[in-house]
């Protein structure tokens, strides 16, 4: 187990190193840097001023030197300065992280409390009308773009209540904050709940065919006890994996949802930084996301082994 963990750590380090190179090179493939953007919008261009600004930002140096500067800074906890606000990257990103994290947790809670029970119902009533309706609903969850779902929710709110539940001021209390995030979280969580539901259903159906379920039935266990104590417990194992992976992948859905609901989280900030070619923000944010994804995968794998005694990671 110890050697497995060490090996995984080394692989994670390798993956993150590869990602850092990839993102760094990709960003510099873009035709035009922030200096071009700024000078384009200004109209009048004095080449000397432009060169001066590029020098000031370090954009004139070889790309390898720029990369090593970034990585050595990163190792020492120095993320550099934003080109746009000229603030340290960390002070720009840090206050936005809890907002996105709260949204992601809420969306995850939403996907579990709807996805798991509905998946079980769908499996237990396989091929009934209930099952068909639930399957169509879950498939529609995978088909609706979450930004459109968000816009439709906004529209209904305008129709019924005459106001839009978007982020228009910093929330004063925890409960106001919770209420503010509830709707965007539901818009994002709908998709995840559909995924969780589909997986719970197929996993339940798989387990319900096993011999020990027949044994439990033949021993006279009630239908309820068979479904919930024997089947669901084992069916939830793969569901745990997908929930873990979804937790990290929710950030994709949050990018558009934060934009629709005007929420100042990291996901929307990434898009803004990309538009402004604010390299220090983009490369550090992308690395942050990659770290979260890679570590979540690792923890899910360990959790999987802890929950299922049949799984042992070879030495």
């Amino acid at each position: 187990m110890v050697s497995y963990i060490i090996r995984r750590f080394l692989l994670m380090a390798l993956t993150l190193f590869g990602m850092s190179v990839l993102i760094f090179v990709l960003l510099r493939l873009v035709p035009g840097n922030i200096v071009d953007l700024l000078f384009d919008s200004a109209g009048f261009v004095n080449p000397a001023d432009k060169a001066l600004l590029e020098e000031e930002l370090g954009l004139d140096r070889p790309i390898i030197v720029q990369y090593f500067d970034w990585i050595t800074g990163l190792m020492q906890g120095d993320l550099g300065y934003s080109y746009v606000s000229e603030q340290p990257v960390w002070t720009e990103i840090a206050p936005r992280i809890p907002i996105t994290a709260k949204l992601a947790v809420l969306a995850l809670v939403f996907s579990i409390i709807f996805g798991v029970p509905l998946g079980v119902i769908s499996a237990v009533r396989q091929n009934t009308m209930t099952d068909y309706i639930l399957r169509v609903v879950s498939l529609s969850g995978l088909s609706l773009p979450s930004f459109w779902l968000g816009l439709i929710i906004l529209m209904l709110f305008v129709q019924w209540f005459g106001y839009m539940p978007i982020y228009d001021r910093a929330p004063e209390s925890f409960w106001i904050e919770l209420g503010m995030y509830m709707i965007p979280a539901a818009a994002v969580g709908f998709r995840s709940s559909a995924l969780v539901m589909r997986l719970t259903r197929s996993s339940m159906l798989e387990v319900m065919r096993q011999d020990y379920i027949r044994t439990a039935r033949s021993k006279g266990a009630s239908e309820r006890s068979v479904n919930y104590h024997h089947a669901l417990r084992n069916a939830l194992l793969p569901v745990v994996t997908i929930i873990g992976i979804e937790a990290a992948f929710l950030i994709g859905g949050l990018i558009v949802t934060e934009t629709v609901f005007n929420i100042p989280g990291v996901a929307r900030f990434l898009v803004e930084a990309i538009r402004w070619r604010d390299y220090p923000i983009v490369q550090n944010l992308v690395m942050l996301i990659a770290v979260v994804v890679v570590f979540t995968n690792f923890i899910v794998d360990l959790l999987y082994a802890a929950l299922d005694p049949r799984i042992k990671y070879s030495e």
Partner: protein
Amino acid sequence: MPRPENNPGAMAIDHDVELARAGANVTGWASGLLFQVRRHPLGAFGAVIVVVFVLAAAFAPWIAPLDPLATNPRASLAPPGSEYFLGADFMGRDMYSRIIYGARISLAVGLASTFLGCLFGIALGLMSGFLLGWVDLAIQRIIDIMQALPLLVMALVMAASLGPSLENTIIAISIPVIPHVARVIRSNTLALREMPFVEAARAQGMSEVRIAVRHVMPNTIAPVIVLATAQLGSAILTEASLSFLGLGVPEPHPSWGRMLSESAAEYVRTAPWLVIFPGLAISLAVFGTNLLGDALRDILDPRERS
């Protein structure tokens, strides 16, 4: 054959019905199609939706009543009516015509990026699973890196670094498809390379590359079709999201996602039709491919059958 009513102890099995249900009367492609349609009504419904969208894309110039790019200042934000069936946008362009033409963009980007992603995914997966050794190790690490970012983030970064154009949007969306396909093909190849027919080909003195391409690859077609259909829906969604964020298909192409970004939050109050219809088009198209994909998986991948 004893009829159930003459033989009260026997279970009422109608052999003709049971045989038909198992597909015994399937003789040609037409009856085969009918058989699958009866068996997967939802999948057939999905196929109908997909066909409608494909036809709309193919015959857009004949179906669309107006030029999707023609502006008309007097019709700015015109509500749905006799002149503009689904209303007009801020520039007075006909929404109905734009949505019909939008099917072209969505399908082109969806199909092309899925195709590209599958092509590279198959090549990488086949090499990885067949050659093993250091090639496998190297490809696995590359796939790890590609999967370290959520799909939309990856596509966003790619789109931003390539710059906005139709072709670049296709490339950006195809990149996150590659690792999915490569993984599935690799695990299939690992199982296939141990098969007797591969051994037989080797005994005949066939080269490794030829074995991989002629004997292993054709056997991975079924999972690829299943995967490609599933990826098609997600590619259409990704295009919509990228264009919504303004980093996908640029103007003047009528992209469904782009229409929503133009009309986003402010039009929720003033011109809801600009928000409802493009989103409905995206959702329906993706819903259709998802339904079809589920049915194809049931038909082509027996292990997934429930």
